[in-house]
C-alpha cells in the first residue's frame, strides 16, 4: 500500500471532521492510484467544510472559544505589549524607545514586537483549544480563519487610509495585531499567524484517537 502524505493526514486527523469512514475513503482512493494533489485537495476541503459545519452546529460554543482567543490576545497587547516588546529589545540590544525616536533605529523593536505578536497568537490558540470542547480542531480552524480575515481587512484598511492621508497612526495594542500583515513584514503574518495558531492550538489539543 502507498504511504499516505503524512502532513496532510496529520492535518485531517487533528483539524478535520471526526469521521473515520472519510479517512478510510481517502486511504482507499489513494491506494487505488489517486495523486498527492488530489489527496491534498480532499484534505483541505474536509478541514474547511468540517470547520464550517462545526460553526453551524455549535455556533455559541465556537463564538465563545474564538472570543476567548481574541480577548486573551488583546488583553496581553493592551496590558503588557509595550513593556514586553521594549523590555526584550532593551535586554537583547540595549535599545530604548526615546533614543530610537532620535536615531530612527527601530529594527530591534520590529523584531521583538513581531516575536511578541506571534507568541501571543500562539498563547491565544492554546486558550481557544482549551475553551473549545471536543472536537477542538474545527474551532481552531475557524479561529485561524478569523485571524486571516482580521489581518487581511486591517492591512487593506491601512493601505487605503495611507493612500488617502499619508501616515496612519495605529494604537499600540492594535499595532501588535496588524503589523505582521503590513508590507515591512512582507505581509508574512497572513500565512504565519494562522500556521502558528494551528500548530500551537494543535499541540494543546488532546491527542487524536488514531493517526
Amino acid at each position, binding site marked *: *500500500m502507498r504511504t499516505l502524505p503524512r502532513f496532510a493526514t496529520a492535518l485531517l486527523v487533528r483539524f*478535520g*471532521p471526526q*469521521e*473515520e*469512514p*472519510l*479517512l*478510510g*475513503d*481517502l*486511504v*482507499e*482512493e489513494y*491506494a487505488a492510484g489517486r495523486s498527492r494533489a488530489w489527496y491534498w*485537495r*480532499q484534505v483541505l*476541503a*474536509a478541514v474547511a*467544510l*468540517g470547520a464550517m*459545519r462545526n460553526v453551524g452546529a455549535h455556533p455559541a460554543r465556537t463564538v465563545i472559544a474564538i472570543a476567548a482567543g481574541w480577548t486573551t490576545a488583546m488583553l496581553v497587547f493592551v496590558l503588557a505589549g509595550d513593556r514586553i516588546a521594549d523590555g526584550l529589545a532593551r535586554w537583547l540590544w540595549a535599545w530604548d524607545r526615546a533614543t530610537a525616536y532620535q536615531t530612527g533605529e527601530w529594527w530591534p523593536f520590529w523584531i521583538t514586537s513581531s516575536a511578541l505578536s506571534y507568541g501571543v497568537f500562539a498563547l491565544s490558540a492554546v486558550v481557544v483549544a482549551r475553551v473549545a470542547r471536543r472536537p477542538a480542531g474545527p474551532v481552531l480552524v475557524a479561529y485561524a480563519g478569523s485571524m486571516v480575515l482580521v489581518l487581511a481587512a486591517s492591512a487593506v484598511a491601512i493601505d487605503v487610509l495611507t493612500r488617502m492621508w499619508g501616515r496612519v497612526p495605529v494604537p499600540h495594542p492594535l499595532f501588535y495585531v496588524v503589523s505582521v500583515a503590513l508590507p515591512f513584514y512582507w505581509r508574512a503574518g497572513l500565512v504565519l499567524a494562522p500556521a502558528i495558531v494551528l500548530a500551537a492550538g494543535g499541540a494543546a489539543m488532546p491527542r487524536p484517537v488514531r493517526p
Partner: protein
Amino acid sequence: MSERLLTDFELMVLLAVLRNRDDAYGVSIAREIEATAGRSVTHAAVYLALDRLVEQGLATARLGDPTPERGGRAKKLFSVTAAGLRAIRRTRAAFVALWKGLPELKGSPS
C-alpha cells in the same frame, strides 16, 4: 418530515446512492457522480450533504466492517429512505414542470 426540494448536489448524491444500492459509500458515490455527471467532487462535500440528508430523514447510514485496503477503517454505508424517494420525485416533478414549454431546451445536451 422535510417537504422541501433537494438542491442539485443533494439530488445527485441521492441518485448515486440509489444506483449503488448495497454498496453506497463515500468512494462509490463520489465515483458515480464523477462518471455520470462529469463533475469532480470532494468526499467531504459528499459526507456533508449525506449527513444533512440523514438528519432530515431522507437517508440512513450504518457502519460496515473495517477492511485492510482502507487501513482498517469501516465504510459508512448509506441508503435512501421512503421520504428520500418522495423528495427525489418531488424535485424531479418541479424540474420537469419548469422545463415544459421551453423551446430553447429542446434536443440533447451538448
